């Protein structure tokens, strides 16, 4: 595992739960342009990217599929598997070769049900990822760079 993945999960989850989770991980090596999931599909898996980039996108008829956000090393791909009705809200596709840990979401959910401590740890981890994504989305809503604000690059005049 790359240090950066260890670090991210380490911040998010106590070591015993992290190790339990990683024990059921399956290492995958995906070609560029591999679709991981499509909006509306059944959310039965998720991934942690070890290397490479995954784009989250949205299908708009008659338009090039817009990329909402890209995810890279250490990032969690997919969270809809944790919340009913377990349906993907966006699509995901690899844009490079991607090496990742793939998880069986059904198995993880069962583990969460069996062990409340583990369940809480997973919930907290995914919750934290979600709060980051929400904050990032909000920051982009403001269109910071669109306003003239940028250091001493034109100042007040």
């Amino acid at each position, binding site marked *: 595992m790359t240090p950066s993945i260890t670090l991210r999960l380490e911040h998010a989850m106590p070591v015993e739960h992290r190790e339990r989770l990683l024990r059921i991980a399956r290492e995958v090596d995906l070609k560029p342009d591999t679709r991981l999931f499509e909006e509306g599909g059944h959310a039965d898996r998720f991934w942690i990217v070890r290397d490479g980039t995954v784009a989250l996108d949205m299908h708009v008829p008659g338009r090039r599929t817009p990329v909402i956000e890209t995810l890279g090393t250490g990032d969690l791909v997919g969270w809809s598997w944790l919340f009913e009705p377990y349906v993907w809200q966006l699509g995901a596709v690899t844009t490079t070769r991607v090496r990742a840990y793939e998880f069986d979401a059904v198995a993880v959910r069962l583990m969460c049900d069996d062990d409340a401590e583990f369940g809480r740890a997973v919930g907290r981890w995914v919750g934290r990822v979600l709060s980051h994504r929400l904050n990032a989305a909000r920051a982009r809503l403001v269109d910071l760079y669109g306003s003239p*604000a940028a250091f001493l690059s034109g100042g007040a005049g």
Partner: protein
Amino acid sequence: MTAVPVPHLVVDRRRDTAETVTLRLEPVGEALAEFAPGQFAMVHCFGRGEIPLSVSSVQGTGGLAHTIRSVGAVSDGLCATRVGDVVGLRGPYGTSWELEPARGQDVLVVAGGIGLAPLRPLILGALAEPEAYGRVSVLVGARTPADLISREELEQWATAYTGVTVDWPDTGWHGDVGVVTQLLGRAPFDPDRTWAFVCGPEPMIRATARDLAQRGVPPERIRVSLERNMRCATGHCGHCQLGPLLVCRDGPVVGWEQAQPLLSVREL
């Protein structure tokens, strides 16, 4: 002696994006003192006025240059100058990035939008001495691919990691999409022995510094560049106050331990 502008000739003019232009300047006669990366000059556009502009290139490496975004009467006038025109310059003013203390440590540069311009000479300085520093990473966020400055340079810089992300991709964009803080997880740095240099819109600075501090980078090793209304640059006009700071004198570059409590007070 009240500082009076020194005439400088525009020797090169390059359009970076639809809104920004980089002017390379050479003194007509007397030269100004050497600028350090992060410092700024008061740049005078004849008949329009003066604005503070940080240097995007310093005398030592490539000659003095300013990257200017046209957002008002003076910056519009400066962006419209042509090679051979004369502008007035006084400086150098303010604090600099101070790369020296980062020797032997990882260097993390985080830029938002045109905030990359003041960081450019710092990046060049670090890359010029690869053996002196640890891993050098450059993270850049921009609104769209068309708003990226120094795009070709970004591809050439021999960093440990260069990440570029945009808020709104266009059809030709195959890079990252999202906020610049998202790239922090991908850059190789050891928080205990890292110096971070952050420049961009204030909310981006706050978000980045918060994230870095949470990852364990000590606040005093997170150097950020502040911006306030500057009229004189010599500490006499009072306009650039930010609480106890006169940004033209005590800034623009300050440590996050100093900036954080000030930026957290609304309308300070």
